[in-house]
């Protein structure tokens, strides 16, 4: 909203933004299509970007040759020990109240959509769900009804870890089902449940991946 409305990003900056947003390997061809510049201009801009990132914490990673070159952003090699340590710490950390609640909903009610989880919890669960996925506690699949939306369910490993053969064996399984069902029914007409159209940007983005 401030004055940079007028600021034009350079091709290099635009590429950096796109790569950051995508997070996954992207071909020169795609970048050329996105930006409307020929591949040579993209290659030149990538060289500039690589140079600009020389002294930063993130780097431009590149693999393949010719038309098949793929690029992506990653953390600097010098930071790899640090990142490894942090990842390890994060993975062994306790889940905490909010994540346990989210996991419990998925365990008892899964497979279900993120919007349903959010609606039951009354808060957005974007980051928590991402972390539960990384830890292998839950899984996601495209929804049978709508391939564009993801549904989340507990992983097989989680059930083994908990020592339950199937979710129905969980304590109070039936009564929990009943209560949540009742809640959904009672609040249907007044529900402020976000429809897909109301999903925050990153959520929608994830479901497309």
């Amino acid at each position, binding site marked *: *909203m401030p004055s940079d*409305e007028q600021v034009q990003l350079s091709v290099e900056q635009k590429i950096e*933004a796109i790569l*950051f*947003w*995508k*997070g*996954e390997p992207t071909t020169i061809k795609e970048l050329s299509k996105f930006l409307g510049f020929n591949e040579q201009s993209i290659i030149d801009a990538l060289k500039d970007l690589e140079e600009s990132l020389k002294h930063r914490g993130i780097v431009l990673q590149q693999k393949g040759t010719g038309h098949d070159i793929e690029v992506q952003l990653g953390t600097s090699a010098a930071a790899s020990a640090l990142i490894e340590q942090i990842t390890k710490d994060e*993975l*062994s*950390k*306790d*889940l*905490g*109240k909010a994540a*346990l*609640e989210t*996991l*419990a*909903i998925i*365990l*008892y009610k899964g497979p279900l959509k993120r919007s349903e989880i959010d609606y*039951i*919890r*009354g808060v957005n669960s974007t980051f928590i769900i*991402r972390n539960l*996925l*990384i*830890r*292998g*506690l839950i899984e996601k699949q495209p929804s049978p009804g709508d391939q564009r939306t993801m549904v989340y369910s507990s*992983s097989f*490993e*989680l059930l083994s*870890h*908990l*020592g*339950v053969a199937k979710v129905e064996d*969980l*304590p*109070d399984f039936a009564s*929990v089902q009943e*209560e*949540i069902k009742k*809640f959904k029914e*009672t*609040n249907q007409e*007044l529900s402020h449940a976000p429809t897909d159209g109301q999903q925050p*940007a*990153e959520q929608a*983005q*994830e479901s497309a*991946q």
Partner: protein
Amino acid sequence: MSDTPQKEGEFKVKTAAFEGPLDLLLNLIEKRKLFINDISLSQVAEDYIQHVNSLPTYNMSDRTQFIVIASTLLLIKAKSLLPTISLTDDEQGSIDDLEQRLRELELMRRLGGIIKDNYGTRIIFPRGEIKQTIQVFAPSQDTSVANLTEAIHRVLFSLPKKIEPPKVTVKKAISLEEMIGNLTDRIQRAVRISFKEFSQAHKAERVHVIVSFLAMLELVKQGVINVHQENNFDEIQMESHDIGIPRY
């Protein structure tokens, strides 16, 4: 009874979309393109009270909140109609407070407009998902059946109850028309009546006092009765001009 004739149903549309008592009041002020001060508040008091009167009776909780603000408007109105009335610190406080609240809400509405204009026009996007190459299974110490059962019960406990307007929690408020009729009767029977006595005779809830006070002011304005207050804090004495006044 207002300066500008009210079209029937004018508030009906409003009622469907109303936000609340402050919202309505601010709408009335803005509709007349007035600044927020005691003069404008006194001018919109009648419109406001008419609206309160037309609120559906099933939604009493909301109605009560409307009437609380109506009472402050009445104070302002009273002051403008009866200059001899002196307000207590509390009363003056609630007037100042209402003006503050309106100004603040007005500011927030303006800012809401700025948000509306800017929202989604230029978005900062978060980093995209990085594909996890190594699939790990990393349960935590606290990933246990006991903790998860406790967690689901916590979730169930904090599920909001059914969303609906609270049912009648206050007794039905006497309508403005009823009260005006009532007041006229009383005046006809006893030529002089104190306002305090009048409202107490009805074992008045606050709502009644307000409504009867308004009714009195209306009559004063119409020239039907005279109001005397000899000294500050004295009883307000009402007196009829003409016993044969038409009934409202």
